[in-house]
């Protein structure tokens, strides 16, 4: 009798458990709770229309809505715009806005606000190419906005993402003050997104709470989001393990990741970073004699063992970036010149180029810089320097005192080679073109600091930037990628191993192409 009872009980519990997991998938997410997030860098202010960078975008995408949002397949989804049409000639994008969206102060969101915001972004956003062809934004009626462009610009769709196209209230920001230094950028921010600002303590934290009149009814699920800004990753990791922090986005310390992989109470995902497309690479200064010869560049490319980088240096947590376009992008090509490690070939190329080993002297002496500020840059620099030593190239790894010092070196072309981390930002027009266009050889960091100049590449990029047909566009970019990987102005290394770490009780962890830099209105706490 007892055995039966126990068996019955066991079966019941098992069934409940299984049923529980089945039910969980269909149950409505609970409303409520505070999500505490940790991020190492502080935002300067909260207006992502005039400031780029993930630090600003994480809070800004909660405060401000954009015309479109994206799923995990690069497909645009309705957000502030219920529907939209791109003209066949690609020179205009018509957005049909929802009629029920309001700002945090209750005023309705209209096409006037959209027009105002997009023009502001064009004028003040650090990324020029994103809105460059936009000439004006017409507002034929209260809920329709038509973006008119001087040439076809398929990138405009991705430019409507939450991270890049926050819709600002014209009645607040349209007072004539310069948006870059507007007082409402950090205080009393009135936004259009799922969360409103409670408090911004610069350098410490951002506190957000649910906006009750958010146009997606029933959302957001969370009551509050607290973004804890703490440069001390050791302390935040500790707090995360103790449970006081629920989410750590853009986490890339592979040592800690490896350690936490076995912790069953924590969820770790690398999804959500396809849009940002962050890659590490080794840039060559083509102005230097050694690097003006493509054989030298190829030789160095052959000296690097990406298998080692991915498996040993990054604990198996990263993947290779083999070309200028992130592999997760729909426009990435598979036909690239890949450089598998081959020290013999590298030596041959160097000999060919005239850099032979003569009488115990090294082939050449180089200085390797790297972008400061955490991440794997230094490790990569040290590793590559060690590899080059095997080729009798003496490499000194030079640490820059801080970011401005390194940026100055790059801007003034006062470097031999440098490790850098650069983001694609969705459409290649936004984040890829700037590195390879000969017209973008400017005295500033994150332009064409390699001084690479290829008129064919210039033409391809110009064309591809305007090509509306996806198949043709893919082909154009494929050719571009082939040339660039063949000419190696840059030796691509790995995709930055960004992971989103969450406690087990966080549901709907953001895994669209924009991941954490998108509205967290569907996240809930179990």
């Amino acid at each position: 009798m007892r055995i039966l009872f126990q068996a019955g009980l066991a079966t019941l519990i098992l069934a409940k458990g299984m049923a529980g997991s089945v039910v969980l998938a269909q149950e409505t997410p609970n409303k409520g709770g505070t999500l505490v997030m940790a991020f190492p860098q502080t935002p300067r202010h909260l207006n992502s229309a005039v400031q780029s960078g993930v630090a600003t975008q994480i809070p800004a995408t909660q405060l401000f809505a954009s015309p479109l949002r994206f799923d995990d397949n690069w497909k645009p989804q309705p957000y502030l715009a219920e529907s939209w049409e791109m003209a066949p000639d690609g020179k205009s994008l018509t957005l049909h806005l929802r009629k029920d969206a309001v700002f945090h102060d209750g005023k309705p969101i209209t096409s006037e606000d959209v027009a105002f915001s997009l023009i502001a972004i064009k004028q003040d956003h650090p990324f020029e190419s994103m809105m460059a062809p936009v000439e004006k934004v017409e507002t034929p009626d209260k809920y329709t906005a038509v973006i008119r462009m001087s040439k076809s610009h398929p990138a405009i769709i991705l430019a409507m993402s939450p991270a890049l196209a926050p819709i600002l209230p014209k009645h607040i920001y349209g007072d004539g003050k310069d948006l870059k230094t507007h007082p409402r950028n950090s205080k009393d921010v009135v936004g259009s997104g799922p969360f409103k600002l409670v408090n911004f303590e610069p350098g410490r934290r951002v506190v957000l709470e649910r906006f009750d009149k958010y146009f997606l009814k029933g959302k957001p699920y969370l009551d509050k989001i607290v973004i804890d800004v703490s440069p001390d990753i050791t302390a935040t990791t500790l707090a995360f393990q103790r449970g006081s922090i629920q989410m750590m986005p853009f986490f890339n310390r592979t040592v800690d990741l490896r350690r936490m992989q076995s912790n069953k109470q924590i969820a770790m995902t690398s999804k959500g970073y396809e849009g940002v497309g962050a890659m590490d690479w080794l840039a060559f200064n083509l102005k230097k004699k050694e690097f003006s010869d493509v054989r030298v560049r190829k030789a160095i490319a052959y000296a690097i063992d990406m298998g080692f980088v991915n498996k040993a240096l990054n604990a198996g947590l990263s993947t290779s970036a083999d070309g200028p376009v992130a592999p997760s992008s729909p426009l990435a090509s598979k036909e690239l010149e890949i450089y598998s490690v081959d020290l013999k070939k590298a030596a041959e190329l160097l000999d060919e180029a005239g850099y032979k080993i003569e009488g115990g002297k090294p082939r050449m002496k180089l200085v390797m810089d790297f972008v400061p500020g955490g991440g794997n840059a230094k490790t990569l620099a040290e590793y590559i320097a060690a590899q080059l030593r095997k080729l009798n190239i003496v490499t000194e790894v030079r640490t820059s005192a801080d970011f401005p010092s390194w940026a100055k070196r790059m801007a003034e072309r006062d470097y031999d080679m440098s490790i850098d981390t650069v983001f694609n930002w969705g459409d290649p027009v936004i984040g890829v073109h700037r590195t390879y266009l000969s017209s973008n050889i400017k005295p500033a960091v994150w332009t064409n600091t390699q001084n690479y100049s290829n008129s064919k590449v210039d033409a391809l990029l110009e064309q591809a930037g305007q090509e509306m047909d996806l198949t043709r566009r893919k082909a154009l970019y494929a050719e571009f990628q082939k040339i660039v990987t063949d000419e190696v102005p840059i030796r691509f290394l790995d995709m930055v191993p960004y992971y989103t770490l969450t406690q087990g009780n966080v549901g709907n962890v953001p895994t669209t192409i924009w991941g954490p830099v998108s509205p967290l209105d569907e996240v809930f706490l179990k």
Partner: protein
Amino acid sequence: MKSLIFKLLNGLVLVLAVVVLNFVLIHAAPGDPVETIAGESGGMSEELRTQLRTQYGLDQPLPVQLGRYLGKVVQGDLGYSYYFNMPVSSLILERLAPTLLLVVVSVLLAFSVGTWLGVRASRNPNGWLSQFTTVFSIAGFSAPVFWTGMMLIILFASVWPVLPVGDMTDSASTATGWAALPDVLLHTILPATTLAFVYMAQYSRLSRASMVDVLGSDYVRTARAKGVSERNILYRHALRNAVLPVITVLGLQFGNVLAGAVLVETVFNWPGLGRLAFDSVLRRDYPTVLGILLFSSILVVVMNVLTDLVYRMVDPRIKTS
């Protein structure tokens, strides 16, 4: 009274000199706040850079910039942070309280424990407590304060996790105002102890030496001869005089406290003025750096004057040169 006013005026001139020197230095040096901002953005167009430079007045000649800055400072306007675009004065005020808390707690701790140790040790100058005090005082001075902090972190994070090891409050806590006090005090323990450790060493040594001197003096011998109890002698007669040099050191140190605070605040991620200073230097946020330098100099001058006052109050016989 007159000399006090004179001292204050003198201090004012000094503070001004500090500001001018640093202003010139900062603006003469290479390095660019606009570059930092561009870095945060992941890139910035040239037009925008030029715009920002003009907005910040960075394209003006140095004397013009200096004049403008001084003019504003005299009116109490410390300018706007390049980085946060917020008034420097409000940034400083926000970060002032945590630093004050940290400093006051650690100085109190150091003073009380240190003096107590010194006084007890002075009663038995050859005893083990005295030896311990000597070693302790030298050790406290020799160990780098940031290293001591990190050792404490290792102890309390891995070995014996009973105290929080970073920040001023728990990330998850949303309590504000007085409700947050217990959490804050708990978080203050480790950083304050680290900072106190350095000063404690000095106070124990100083108070012991001072007490030994005073205990051997005629004044005390007379009191003993008159039959005053040992306890009374120690705490009423001797201590009062022995405490003078300690007060001097206390006053002088308080002014320089920002230096130790920078290191401790960095190690413990304490949201104070020291860390703000450090971060601002790295970001080339000139107005904030200058504001903090100004503030710190004023603090030193004020503390010097106060120390003088207290000194004179405790012993009116003493005339400061």
